């Protein structure tokens, strides 16, 4: 299991990568492993407002659908439309498979660094 040091993580298994005043959001390696083969993603649109801790997208494996929660409150600046066409990218390279880029960030949920998240996952196992 991979836990890149340059990311922060949520208790609901999303990652966030800050870049200037904006941030990219995706699901973690642990999340994709738990979900299994991902075959569909339902993404928000540019301009949508995200609420920290609330679902903003959903992903579907062959078997089931799961919500993806927003780590931050903010506004969607960019949507990774390629992900909708190739949802398997979430399994293959979860930390490159970003969902949205968010700006105007005003609040965040409790975030963990890589080490804390790795320990958190170990406990969930």
């Amino acid at each position: 299991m991979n836990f890149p040091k340059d990311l922060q993580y949520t208790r609901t298994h999303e990652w966030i990568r800050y870049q200037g005043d904006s941030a990219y959001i995706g699901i973690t390696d642990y999340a994709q492993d738990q979900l299994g083969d991902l075959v569909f993603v339902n993404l928000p649109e540019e301009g949508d407002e995200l609420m920290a801790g609330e679902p903003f997208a959903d992903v579907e494996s062959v078997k089931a659908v799961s919500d993806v929660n927003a780590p931050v409150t903010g506004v969607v600046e960019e949507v990774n439309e390629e992900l909708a066409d190739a949802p398997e990218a979430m399994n293959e390279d979860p930390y490159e498979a970003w969902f949205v880029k968010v700006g105007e960030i005003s609040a965040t949920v409790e975030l963990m660094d890589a080490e804390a998240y790795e320990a958190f996952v170990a406990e969930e196992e």
Partner: protein
Amino acid sequence: MEAKKTPLYDKHVQAGGKIVEFAGYLLPVQYQTGVIKEHMAVRTACGLFDVSHMGEITVKGKDAVRFLNHLLTNDYTVMEDGQARYSPMCNPEGGVVDDLIVYKVKEDDYFIVVNAANKDKDFAWIRANVLGDVVVEDISESIAQLALQGPKAEEILKKLTSEDQIPTGYYTANFNGTVAGYKAIISRTGYTGEDGFELYVSPEAAPVLWDKLLETGVEEGLIPCGLGARDTLRLEAAMPLYGHEMNDEITPRTAGLGTFVKMQKEEFIGKEALERLGKPTCRRVGLKVTGKGIAREHQDVYADGRKIGVTTSGTHSPYLKYPIAMAIVEDAYRAVGTQVEVDVRGRRVAAEVVKLPFYKKA
């Protein structure tokens, strides 16, 4: 009630299976390979499933045929030894108690395989309806079941048994088989839409055979498969699943199983109700999702601005690479090509009625 382990539980854990509780049993939903690869292995090579959770019931006695014809909607009057025949089992209201497969072992001796989730209900129901001179026994605990499924299944099985032991016809079985030296019922049946075998063996033999088969089938591409692939495979093949396409209230004809209901039989449980109900007003259809989204079970189906049905199963089809679903819809909307919408968690997603099965082996 605590979930039971099948005789293969340790094998699943060792192989990295993701264990879930299903029908009171701890079973792997998938292994590390994942549902899609497991599914494709069965379509293109071969997969091995633990289906030991299924229930097995024997019916013996000089009135066995008469009893089966009373209990079940299909006709068991004329059958060869070793032949298998599917049937719904109805309640007096015409709903389905369960669907099952009956094998004729020999005269006055029948072997029934029922769904895991229903086996206690079924056994009680069968016992309560006994007629004439028959003895009914639940032998589930003494039997493990392995399903070897896929175009390479026969090739693999041949390496572990002699060719004359392998039944040649679909829905036939050899009740005196041996596989790798273990006694086995070798049945040419399955729940995947592919050629393949279901092997009924003792709980002691099961783990040894599991390893032997996997070892023997390496060359052919055999891998272990979990419940996830079992469900996507049966869905592509449009095989109904109890609790989804049928239940205590859905009649066999509504579920598209009319060919297994022999109305010309003198009597059977549910016949009067089915006669009274006549032609069903709703039917099972196949849906291909053409919009963006994946339809799942229990989602409303719309057309002409109103609800016309409900989905019973749905998934992303690993073989066809688009989402498929089965639904029970009003008769007027069951023609192939009919455009409908499915309410996928509050979003209307476009779908089209298509011919069943979604997948048919070449």
